[in-house]
């Protein structure tokens, strides 16, 4: 039986993309698998009694070394902020390519804590900063210094000791351009080095908390239990900065979604499901309920989503146990069709992620195809004709072309770059100034404009000739020819409409990162947790691939 890939007009709706969950394809999981045979080392740890100072951690294999350099600083309570407008943090980090010299560390000591206003070099790969969850960090220090392990209930509510507020890579602030390192096999999957940074930062937070506790009470202090460490991740506060990324990297977006859709298609095409595979699927599914039940948020929007997810999942598990026969042909296809009929998007996508768990053989080959050589598709094929372009638009943007942008609610917002922090923002064009400086992120509106202009042009006109008089539409002409080849390259929704929920765009990206416990703090930013439950670096060479559900 052949199953079609799901229609981009369904998959690429924001509500669907905003219902995606971590999976075997997620970058943090594929990072751990890739680096499991690398040698981990703590190379330097020079912190004072308050935990301030420098530390270096590394991964190395076959002469290749990646080193995380950590700078932990004194920060006044009043200066601690997760917002991107902050200028100081509890700790700042950079991932250095190779072994840093003393001179490198001295140079980076001056620059890394400054973050966006510092300058890095081509020898640095990623940059980040993080703030303590003060309540949790202090509680852990107090407990350990008294010889006790901390209160697990408090820890599980928060899930981390530190949260990062940005992780930068790919040439930002002087960091190495991707072209310098893109041929390294170990980083073929996207965001590998960002994942490495966050993972090593997690270890730093454990070492720091142990160190401070020990200094506080050298005789009595104990170390944080490994099992407790494992159940702590790294938090992350994420704002709108991530949203334009998925619009600005269409072929990359396609490759992520296409990998996911291809895995789903191949699983639905399996005729006979082996007993061990159905067992593993059910086991992961049941265990994962624990993650949903411990998913804390104050957001009413998310609470609703979680409760409907739980309700749907319980129905689904009930269906699996009472009405479903895994020995029937194409059982996963039957499951998928049942989900589409009986559950919401959140649950369907959750189970889709879960279906991947038994199928390493299907998932693994696709992981290396999730990067993109975007330059290859930049040139516009100007020898094509108006009629061809019109056909692409009609095929690929069908629902977009039905939107009436003369209605205020469909044209309400505009995306801009804030002058203060050079970060993307969204604002109401009828209430705020600056819409004349709108970023080219209103793709749906501009595609509609393009279509209307094409309809008044001669069909046999070449695109080169068309562009000569329609330069203002050039950016969407380029996109239309990209979507022709890459159907999942475009969000099939209006990103400037009244009803847009920007955090759906963030959730899409974060689900591919492998984040858990999305906690929206408004419709424009959210907190997440990464690597919670993941093996510690010293356990990497022998770990359970299904750690997410343990």
């Amino acid at each position, binding site marked *: 039986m052949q199953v079609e890939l799901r229609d981009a007009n369904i998959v690429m709706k924001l509500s669907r993309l905003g219902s995606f969950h971590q999976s075997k394809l997620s970058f943090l999981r594929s990072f751990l698998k890739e680096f499991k045979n690398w040698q981990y080392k703590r190379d330097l740890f020079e912190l004072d009694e308050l935990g301030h100072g420098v530390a270096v951690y590394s991964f190395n294999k076959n002469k290749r070394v990646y080193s995380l350099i950590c700078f932990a600083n004194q920060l006044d309570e009043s200066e601690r902020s997760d917002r991107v407008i902050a200028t100081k943090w509890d700790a700042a980090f950079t991932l250095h390519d190779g072994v840093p010299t003393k001179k490198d560390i001295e140079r980076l000591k001056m620059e890394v804590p400054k973050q966006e206003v510092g300058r890095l*070099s*081509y020898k640095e790969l990623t940059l980040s900063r993080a703030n303590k969850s003060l309540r949790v960090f202090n509680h852990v220090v107090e407990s350990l210094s008294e010889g006790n392990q901390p209160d697990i209930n408090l820890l599980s509510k928060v899930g981390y000791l530190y949260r990062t507020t940005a992780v930068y890579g*790919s*040439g*930002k*602030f*002087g*960091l*190495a*351009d*991707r*072209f310098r390192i893109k041929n390294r096999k170990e980083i073929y999957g996207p965001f590998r080095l960002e994942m490495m940074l966050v993972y090593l930062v997690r270890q730093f937070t454990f070492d720091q908390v142990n160190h401070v506790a020990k200094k506080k009470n050298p005789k009595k202090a104990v170390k944080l239990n490994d099992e407790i460490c494992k159940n702590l991740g790294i938090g992350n506060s994420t704002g709108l900065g991530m949203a334009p990324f998925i619009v600005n990297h269409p072929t990359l977006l396609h490759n992520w979604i296409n990998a996911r859709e291809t895995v789903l298609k191949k699983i639905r095409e399996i005729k006979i499901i082996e007993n061990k595979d159905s067992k593993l699927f059910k086991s992961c599914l049941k265990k994962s309920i624990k993650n949903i039940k411990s998913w804390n948020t104050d957001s009413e929007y998310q609470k609703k989503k979680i409760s409907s997810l739980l309700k749907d999942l319980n129905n689904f598990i009930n269906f699996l146990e009472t009405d479903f026969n895994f020995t029937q042909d194409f059982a996963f296809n039957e499951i998928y069709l049942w989900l589409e009929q009986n559950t919401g998007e959140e649950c369907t996508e959750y189970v889709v992620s879960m279906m991947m768990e038994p199928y390493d053989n299907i998932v693994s080959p696709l992981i290396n195809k999730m990067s993109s050589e975007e*330059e290859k598709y*930049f*040139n*516009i094929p*100007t*020898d094509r004709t108006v009629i061809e372009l019109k056909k692409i638009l009609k095929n690929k943007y069908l629902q977009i072309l039905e939107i009436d942008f003369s209605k205020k609610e469909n044209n309400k917002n505009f995306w801009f*770059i804030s002058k203060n922090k050079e970060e993307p923002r969204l604002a109401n064009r009828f209430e705020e100034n600056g819409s004349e400086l709108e970023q*080219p992120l209103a793709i749906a509106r501009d595609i509609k404009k393009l279509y209307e202009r094409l309809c008044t042009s001669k069909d046999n006109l070449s*695109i*080169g*000739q068309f*562009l*000569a*008089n329609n*330069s*203002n*539409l*050039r*950016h*969407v*002409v*380029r996109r239309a020819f990209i979507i022709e080849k890459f159907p999942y390259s475009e969000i099939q929704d209006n990103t400037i409409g009244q009803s847009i929920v920007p955090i759906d765009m963030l959730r899409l990206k974060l689900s591919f990162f492998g984040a858990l416990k999305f906690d929206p703090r408004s419709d424009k930013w959210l907190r997440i947790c990464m690597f919670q439950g993941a093996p510690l670096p010293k356990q990497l060479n022998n770990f359970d691939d299904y750690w997410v559900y343990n």
Partner: protein
Amino acid sequence: MKSLSEIETVSKRASKAAGFSWGVAEEVGKNVRLLEMFGLPGIKNLNNFFKSKKNFFFENLIFINKDNKKDNTQFCPIITGTSFLDQIRDIEKFGEVNFKKIGYPLLFLPFVSRASEVIGKRLFLKLDKKEFLLNFNNNIYSNFFKNDIVELAENVSIKFIDNSDLFSNTEWQELYKLSENTFVEESDSLKRSGAGAGLTDND
């Protein structure tokens, strides 16, 4: 040192701020990245061009002919370049294209380099005495390596170089003969057992 990613982003945004559409600004971002990667002064020339553009009129050349000239006016390197790239398949038929006066011509160069990749032919670009052989957008061979601002090229010509060998048949044969020394002479038994041996495939 600025990364190429920063160079591209800032060039793109500056081009939009200087009055170009987002689509054209994207082209400029890519182009300045290319120039800097090839070791040519992209940022320097773009910055100066935008400063000059405030007080000086540059003609937008929308349709490219074999000979392109507008009395006493300089062509805008960005719009001329965009038109050149967009119309390259038609322009190719001319065999050679000439322009009188292109302002800041180094900004025009990457469009020509990219056009070379699009049509799969080397292009020979002359900006007055400065010569550039553009090899499929993979590299540039030139007699110009100065980190200078070039404000104007009075005479610009582009020749389309037909794809042909750069060596004689004798040179090829001599080298081929040498390469044969890596081959193994087949014995009769090897011939009998080799791929396809013993079967007839003319069904």
